[in-house]
């Protein structure tokens, strides 16, 4: 009786407690990562503020560094302009060839041109919020799609990796794209054959990590990166992107390469979900 009266008196708070409990349990089960240890809990909460203060400090330090770099950049800029003219001429030829290639591929039909059995699907939506990079497509389990299937797309006549299937509904599926922080792909540099792990960090940026430091001299800007096929998830040889920046930190034993994806995710309309076995 007293319980009922208490509930009637504090209805919003009781319901709020119920909702929060449900959400926390769902989060715990979904992430399998429920933290109950007080030390980790404290670390997690306070490290958040620590990160904030560290970000502010690095901002000022990096600004001072940037001013020094600016002077050097001016000299590089003049030299780069000369090279640019040369490359522009090459690019015109390349664009012409790419356009020709693209139209030929369309005629041949992309789907049949792929090396693996595939299910073509259309992009019907993206993440309703800004914390994740979800892509939703119009095919689900009814079309034979299963979780973790690799997803590719073709743009400008080139086939590139989009990501993998994250969740499957009956008539729709969500795809975890390369740039999502939860995405990990075993990769290889096409020319030098060195391996690494490609990981998204959000913000349309993908990084290739764990590339041995001593191979720095063998890596060039623009080198292509492909899937290595080391895990069974992604077949080998699918293009991921090209090397944009090389970070070699003094304290780190491996290199970190910033990768420019082959696929422009903002223009994605159609994707191909692959079966791992070849045709």
């Amino acid at each position, binding site marked *: 009786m007293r319980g009922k009266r208490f509930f009637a008196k504090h209805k919003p708070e009781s319901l709020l407690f119920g*909702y929060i409990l449900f959400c926390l349990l769902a989060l715990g089960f979904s992430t399998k990562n429920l*933290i109950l240890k007080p030390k980790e809990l404290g670390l997690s909460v306070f*490290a958040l503020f620590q*990160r904030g203060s560290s970000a502010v400090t690095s901002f000022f330090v990096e600004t001072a560094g940037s001013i020094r770099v600016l002077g050097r950049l001016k000299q590089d800029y003049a030299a780069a302009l000369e090279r640019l003219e040369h490359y522009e001429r090459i690019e015109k030829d390349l664009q012409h060839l790419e356009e020709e290639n693209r139209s030929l591929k369309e005629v041949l039909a992309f789907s049949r041109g792929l090396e693996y059995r595939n299910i073509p699907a259309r992009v019907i939506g993206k993440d*309703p919020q800004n*914390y*994740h990079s979800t892509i939703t497509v119009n095919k689900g389990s009814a079309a034979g799609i299963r979780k973790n299937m690799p997803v590719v797309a073709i743009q400008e006549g080139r086939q590139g990796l989009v990501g993998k299937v994250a969740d499957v509904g009956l008539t729709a599926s*969500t795809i975890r794209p390369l740039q999502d922080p939860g995405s990990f792909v075993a990769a290889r540099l096409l020319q030098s054959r060195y391996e690494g792990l490609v990981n998204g960090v959000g913000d349309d940026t993908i990084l290739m990590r764990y590339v041995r430091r001593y191979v720095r001299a063998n890596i060039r800007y623009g080198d292509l990166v492909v899937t290595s096929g080391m895990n069974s998830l992604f077949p080998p040889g699918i293009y991921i992107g090209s090397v944009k920046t090389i970070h070699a930190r003094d304290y780190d034993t491996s290199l970190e390469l910033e990768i420019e994806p082959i696929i422009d995710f903002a223009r994605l309309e159609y994707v191909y979900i692959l079966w791992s076995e070849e045709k």
Partner: protein
Amino acid sequence: MLLFASIAVTAVLILLQSTVMHYIAICGVVPDLSLMAVVYLANQNGRLHGQSLGFAGGLIEDFLSLAPLGFHALLKTLIGYLAGFSRGVVFIGAFLMPMLMVGLAGIVKALAAGILAALFSLPLGSGGVFSWKTLIEIGYNIALSPVVFALLRLFPFLKPREFDR
């Protein structure tokens, strides 16, 4: 009935967020229309309505997103509950109050998302608490709030009534 109508309107806004709003995204950031709906309807109908609407709307977002189930649901439940306190206290005018309330809700959302991400080790990428994306989202939400609130006022079935006394 009012709650179901509110959930239906919020669901439509979430669908817009995941489709057409990506065409008018600023630096890849879409505005959070459902957040505005939760704030407005919680202000009109109180805490109970706000938190239930937030819970339902957040769950829909969880289903459509890579986020673990319960992530957006918890954020929106909290915002709905807190915004519900403004019922009968804050009168929503045309510009200032919608912008202020939506701005505050955006800050609460970012902080709560940061805490949840830290507690459950969620990979949020650059959309965490200390990021320019969060600032753009809050700014975008503030700019759109007078328009969205004005549109929500047009729906007769969302008119406030005695619900949460």
